[in-house]
């Protein structure tokens, strides 16, 4: 069943996704993509009369992160006067989720506190085995080498291991709680669930506290050891260590200053918070062992309504690692490129998407006509961007390491662009077959990057050849896909020019720099593109507008996307920085937006203000905890579909860094004047 998270937390081995009422939706161990061990895991209260599930609609919730950490606070309020305060954190080193429940009630309660879980250990409901060790008070469920355990302080006083979906329904832990007491069955096999119970004796205004540890390990022995050791530590100590871990990690970031953001209420603080949150999210999407990233935590593992998101795409991850590099974390580039070297296909290209360990993932892009050539272009481009920031010995070592991969990738791009524009393949939205502006731009950037690296490696001939092809691709794209209306066509589909306005044409400017504002004509092209995208793809919601992917988009109702909106703002902010300050001679046949009656300063201000509007729109569409989704529901204005999406986070980081640069430049200019 599709359930989108409102919050995520974890450490290097564990990723947990939760709903807004603190119900666990996903428990990924030991990788972010596999295995997901939880079907349901939630607390409930038996009032003495009836069972109240904390995930039910009758509870109101407020959920947020503890500032600058991946520690979560969830407060639940029930009409009957019960209040539950949940603190969730994952230990920074060991894969154990720690959940502290503080329960208060306005009225006296003599009932039970239950913690119910339906684990699918090993991501399967089959052949699981569960037991309650009453000596150590550990509830364990396992399958092969995956072991998930529940321990508590204080000890639970009753328990049940039962069949989750069987004709012998009375053993089902979920139903066993209904009468307020558990049967204490100690072990079972198959598709099973479990519950732990505690007496809940609350005087009016009183508080009860329960701490639940949900840990994972590769063996029973290790699980026991982990749970025993961690449960000896005071919660305050673990909390402080965890908080310190996140604060320390964030302290390495590129510091923002954002001077002079007056006139935008609280925006500066909002951007600081969003920047930190995006970084913390990307940490959690990354596989520390392999260097790859999931696009988003998986929420549709049965591919009921989409192809799933819990895999690594080179396109998304190239954006993510470059954003991390720009914000002070270059090591993610290095790790990812090592992974790329391992995962490159024999023809020099990269596959549509991968499991985090580098195995090819389920795909609808198995052939030359259905592959996505842009992923190869984007990867080579990102490698070159990373290379350019390295210095000295590190530079040489990196080049040595990636050179063969660069060579193979560039030759693949050469093979697929003999006529200038690329051969037919699938577009970046994974929907259409044909020739696409975005894909051509990524190929251009990939070949230019490869050319630069070849030159650095003393391969002048190759450098010339690849650069020449890159320029050919650029010229062919402009000649065949630029329209008089002032934008690039989406591409050529079924042999026909498709004039649909598609936000991905922005890729010709950012990130791939196929066209540059330094060239007066190309500068005009960029401005016209921006105007046309705003005009044709704006969707009004949340007191502003978001940008949908392309005209007549029907994927998940054709919502506006955070990705495309932040892509537009990135183009605007980049242009504000790139615009040459001196007046240029314009072709009189063009009506140039912005500059028609405006000077340089006004143009920069307008671009910056509009960019800020887009950023604010994206933040308004985030979850209550600040997670950026892929989309925003066009009817409700709420976050939609993949949450959190790594690409959205990386674009937010890019935007904030650009805005910071604009602010600093402006502040510098003010000082000078």
């Amino acid at each position: 069943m599709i359930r989108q998270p409102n919050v995520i937390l974890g450490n290097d081995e564990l990723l947990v996704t939760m709903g807004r009422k603190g119900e666990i939706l996903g428990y990924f161990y030991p990788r972010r993509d596999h295995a997901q061990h939880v079907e349901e895991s939630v607390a409930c209260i038996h009032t003495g009369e009836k069972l109240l599930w904390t995930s039910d609609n009758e509870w109101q919730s407020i959920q947020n992160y503890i500032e600058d950490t991946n520690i979560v606070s969830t407060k639940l309020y029930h009409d009957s006067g019960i209040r539950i305060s949940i603190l969730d954190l994952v230990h920074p080193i060991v894969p154990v989720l720690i959940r502290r429940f503080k329960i208060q009630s306005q009225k006296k309660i003599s009932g039970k506190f239950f913690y119910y879980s339906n684990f699918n250990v090993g991501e399967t409901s089959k052949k699981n085995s569960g037991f309650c060790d009453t000596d150590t008070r550990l509830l364990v469920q396992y399958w092969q080498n995956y072991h998930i355990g529940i321990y508590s302080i204080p000890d639970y006083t009753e328990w049940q291991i039962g069949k989750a979906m069987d004709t012998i329904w009375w053993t089902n832990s979920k139903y066993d709680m209904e009468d307020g007491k558990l049967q204490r069955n100690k072990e079972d096999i198959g598709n099973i669930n479990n519950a732990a119970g505690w007496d809940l004796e609350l005087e009016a205004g009183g508080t009860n506290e329960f701490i639940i540890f949900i840990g994972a390990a590769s063996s029973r022995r290790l699980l026991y050891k982990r749970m025993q050791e961690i449960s000896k530590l005071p919660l305050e100590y673990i909390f402080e260590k965890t908080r310190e871990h996140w604060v320390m990690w964030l302290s390495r970031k590129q510091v923002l200053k954002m001077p002079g953001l007056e006139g935008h209420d609280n925006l500066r603080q909002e951007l600081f918070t969003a920047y930190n949150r995006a970084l913390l999210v990307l940490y959690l999407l990354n596989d520390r062992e392999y260097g790859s990233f999931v696009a988003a935590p998986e929420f549709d593992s049965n591919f009921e309504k989409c192809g799933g998101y819990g895999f690594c795409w080179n396109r998304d991850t190239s954006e993510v690692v470059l954003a991390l590099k720009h914000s002070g974390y270059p090591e993610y580039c290095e790790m990812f490129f090592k992974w790329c070297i391992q995962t490159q296909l024999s023809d020099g290209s990269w596959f549509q998407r991968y499991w985090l360990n580098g195995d090819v993932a389920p795909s609808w892009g198995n052939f030359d006509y259905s592959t996505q050539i842009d992923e190869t272009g984007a990867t080579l481009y990102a490698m070159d961007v990373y290379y350019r920031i390295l210095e000295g010995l590190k530079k040489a070592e990196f080049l040595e390491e990636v050179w063969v991969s660069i060579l193979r990738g560039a030759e693949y791009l050469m093979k697929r662009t003999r006529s200038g524009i690329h051969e037919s393949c699938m577009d970046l939205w994974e929907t259409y077959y044909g020739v696409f502006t975005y894909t051509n731009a990524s190929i251009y950037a990939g070949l230019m990057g490869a050319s630069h690296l070849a030159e650095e490696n003393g391969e002048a001939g190759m450098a010339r050849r690849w650069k020449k092809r890159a320029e050919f691709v650029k010229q062919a794209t402009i000649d065949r896909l630029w329209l008089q209306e002032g934008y690039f066509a989406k591409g050529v589909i079924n042999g026909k020019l498709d004039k649909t306005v598609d936000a991905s044409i922005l890729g010709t400017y950012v990130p791939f720099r196929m066209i540059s504002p330094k060239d007066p004509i190309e500068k005009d092209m960029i401005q016209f593109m921006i105007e046309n995208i705003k005009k044709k793809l704006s969707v009004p919601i949340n007191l502003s507008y978001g940008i949908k992917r392309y005209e007549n988009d029907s994927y998940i109702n054709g919502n506006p996307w955070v990705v495309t909106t932040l892509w537009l703002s990135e183009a605007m902010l980049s242009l504000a920085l790139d615009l040459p300050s001196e007046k240029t001679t314009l072709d009189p046949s063009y009506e140039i937006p912005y500059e028609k009656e405006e000077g340089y300063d006004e143009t920069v201000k307008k671009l910056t203000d509009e960019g800020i509007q887009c950023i604010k729109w994206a933040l308004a569409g985030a979850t209550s905890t600040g997670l950026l989704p892929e989309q925003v529901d066009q009817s409700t204005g709420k976050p939609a579909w993949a949450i959190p999406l790594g690409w959205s986070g990386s674009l937010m980081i890019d935007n904030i860094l650009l805005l910071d640069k604009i602010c600093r430049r402006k502040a510098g200019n003010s000082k000078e004047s």
Partner: protein
Amino acid sequence: MVRDLFMFAGFNESSQIVWFKIIYSKEPGSLSSVIDFLEKENAFIMFGHLDNITQKTGEYSVFTELNKDVDPGDFAQKIKELAVVSEVDYGISKYGMVYSMDFPLNVIGVRGVAARALTIVDIIKTFNQNAPHAEGLLTISGLKGGIHAAKYFKSILNLNDSNFASVLAELYRGVGWGILEIDCNPETYEGKVIVKDSFIADVYGGADQPVCAFMSGYIAGYLTEYFGKNISVREVSCKATGKKVCEHIISPAPSGGTSQEYQFRGETR
């Protein structure tokens, strides 16, 4: 089109809901003479519909509210004595399972829907063919419905050992699920339920295994809620497997704890 549904708004202890199926000859004024008779005898007509059987005969099915004192058998006999009437069948609703004053239809206190048996059986088949643990899933789905039904009846009438079985039987008939014969000892919680014309087994087609897990679950839920004790109901014989009727065995569920008997099914299967 909604047919054969009781229509009334609540449980009235001084009256009874009686349906009559009247076969009459289609002569000018013949139907009017039937209706006039019902009115004259103070049978309040709540809902009725007509069917053509042949060019010469028709069927008039009518739901009436009769005073509690009236003997429905005698009343049916009187209808049969009318010159235009050839046959009369009748039945009584004691508990009022289904009613519909207006949209939407209401079934035992909450919104109901009418569906072709095939539609529901298609859902069941899809589960059986595709979902792991389909039998358990259907049992648990039924269980919930049965629990809700018993809760509802406990809230509107005095559900007791003398009527809990007939209430369930009337419900099954009212919603068209089947004709129940229930033999259950409320002291030992043991017994059996015969389901004639189970809508699932009727429509399912041939099967190697019993297919009415949803009904077993429903009955289990109803009895569990009524008795306040976990009740196991398992289908041991099913019309879909070629038997004449479906048979479900009722027994107290084994208690859990450290007992191992249920894990490997023991006697419960």
